[in-house]
């Protein structure tokens, strides 16, 4: 029943009941009302108002509550939706609202996906260019200088050696930038090696012990999904190194039924998971790209980031 009819019927029913009481009950109102009649009328009116208010509250209350709750929903959280109330008008409102939030979220994640994919493609292109063009040319210069140095008269050799060192530094810079843009190891050697490389880097740059468990024989995943797993592992490890104050961290990649689970767990001091920064939001967005499910749990004894992606995701 629509909200209009419900309110109309409730009011109507109360008025009809009052009219019936007035007609059938032992009540009368004189042309000049005496005090007792006014009191009775007043009591009757009050009773009517109270009954009306109670009845209306049961049907409009849920609507108010829904309106209040709307403000706090986080569309990014797929599970953060309004609970469906039992009575009809609230239920319709909630259903409509949740559907809209879902639609909003779908659209947003579609455009985020596009932006992320475009960004990754661009990074890929630049990294490739750096490796294949700039890097090779600098290699040619480096080797040429070495050769020239071997044959140059002594007074030139020192200059050439200096140039050679500078060239090497340039080559190292190019390589470092390319590596930051795009992990070549993921493409060339696969996810297991890329994760191994992340943990090696982590062990080198933080004081914490790191353990890596990658189940052998994992099913092949689409490259986009591997990239999502890699980036989430990278961000989770960065957070563990930067914020956790952990003494040991474990990274695992295992198969769970028809899903692959990536877990990064640290034994640091934890944090309030409701206070997400750009890093955790980014992880959530990427998880959605791979139709995956990201859960972050944290307490004072450590933080666990878990990402599960379906094996058949395309």
């Amino acid at each position: 029943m629509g909200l209009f009819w419900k309110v109309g019927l409730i009011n109507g029913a109360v008025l009809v009941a009052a009219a019936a009481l007035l007609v059938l009950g032992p009540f009368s109102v004189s042309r000049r009302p005496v005090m007792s009649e006014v009191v009775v009328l007043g009591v009757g009116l009050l009773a009517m108002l109270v009954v009306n208010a109670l009845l209306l509250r049961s049907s409009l209350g849920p609507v108010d509550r829904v309106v209040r709750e709307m403000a706090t929903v986080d569309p990014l959280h797929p599970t953060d939706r309004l609970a469906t109330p039992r009575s009809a008008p609230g239920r319709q409102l909630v259903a409509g609202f949740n559907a809209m939030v879902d639609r909003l979220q779908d659209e947003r994640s579609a455009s985020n996906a596009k932006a992320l994919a475009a960004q990754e493609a661009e990074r890929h292109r630049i990294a490739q260019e750096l490796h294949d063009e700039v890097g090779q040319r600098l290699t040619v210069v480096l080797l040429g200088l070495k050769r020239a140095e071997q044959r140059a008269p002594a007074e030139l050799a020192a200059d050439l050696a200096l140039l050679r060192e500078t060239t090497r530094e340039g080559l190292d810079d190019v390589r470092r930038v390319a590596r930051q843009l795009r992990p070549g190891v993921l493409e060339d050697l696969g996810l297991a090696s890329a994760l191994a490389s992340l943990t090696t880097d982590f062990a080198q740059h933080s004081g914490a012990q790191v353990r890596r468990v990658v189940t052998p024989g994992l099913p092949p995943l689409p490259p986009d999904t591997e990239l999502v797993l890699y980036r989430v592992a990278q961000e989770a490890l960065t957070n563990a190194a930067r914020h956790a104050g952990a003494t040991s961290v474990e990274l695992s990649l295992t198969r769970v039924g028809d899903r692959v689970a990536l877990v990064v767990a640290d034994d640091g001091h934890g944090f309030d998971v409701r206070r997400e920064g750009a890093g955790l939001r980014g992880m959530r967005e990427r998880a959605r790209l791979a139709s995956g499910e990201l859960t972050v749990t944290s307490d004072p004894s450590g933080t666990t980031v878990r990402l599960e992606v379906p094996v058949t995701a395309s």
Partner: protein
Amino acid sequence: MSTPARILLADDHALVRRGVRLILDQEPDLTVVAEAADGAEAVQLVRSLDLDLVVLDIAMPRMTGLQAAREITRRTSHGDPPRMLMLSMHDNEQYFFESLKVGASGYVLKSAADEDLVGACRAALRGEAFVYPGAMSPLVRDYLDRMRRGERVPETVLTEREDEVLKLIAEGSSSKEIAAALTISVKTVERHRANILAKLGMRDRTQLTRYAIRAGLIEP
């Protein structure tokens, strides 16, 4: 002196190939006898030529250097395959471990090729491994971890200096940084490094591969 070692050089970049060739031909004990512009061509040439060493760039079209190395190892299961050395832009220890896995003796970074390549070729020809410096840290860290846990590790007697160098390597310091920290020359650091590798049983290719598999750095 015996005849120089016969080398096949594979790189898709003609100028890089030329640069490497000039460096190698300069040495009396090394000679480049053939060049390939991609992995497939390299595999082909290995079958028809008598070679001692193949130097393979990793990033090549048609067939990467790693795929080519795997193919060369696989095809020459009887008889001696030529030794192989990988050459690459990527500064990442995983490439070195993958190189060992596909049967290569070592991994040389292009940005260090002017210094390391000749030495790496000679090491490979002797049957030794050329350990890419960036891979030293995970290797010796595993060793230190196992020692700390009280596991049995290869019996070694490192000198005090070697022990210091070992710890710095485990922390990921480069040769240059170690030299600065201990106020010794880079050359001395590198000599210590070679001694440490030998004492930990990681000098020859097969030993090193076995060690890396046990350390979980390479999947068997």
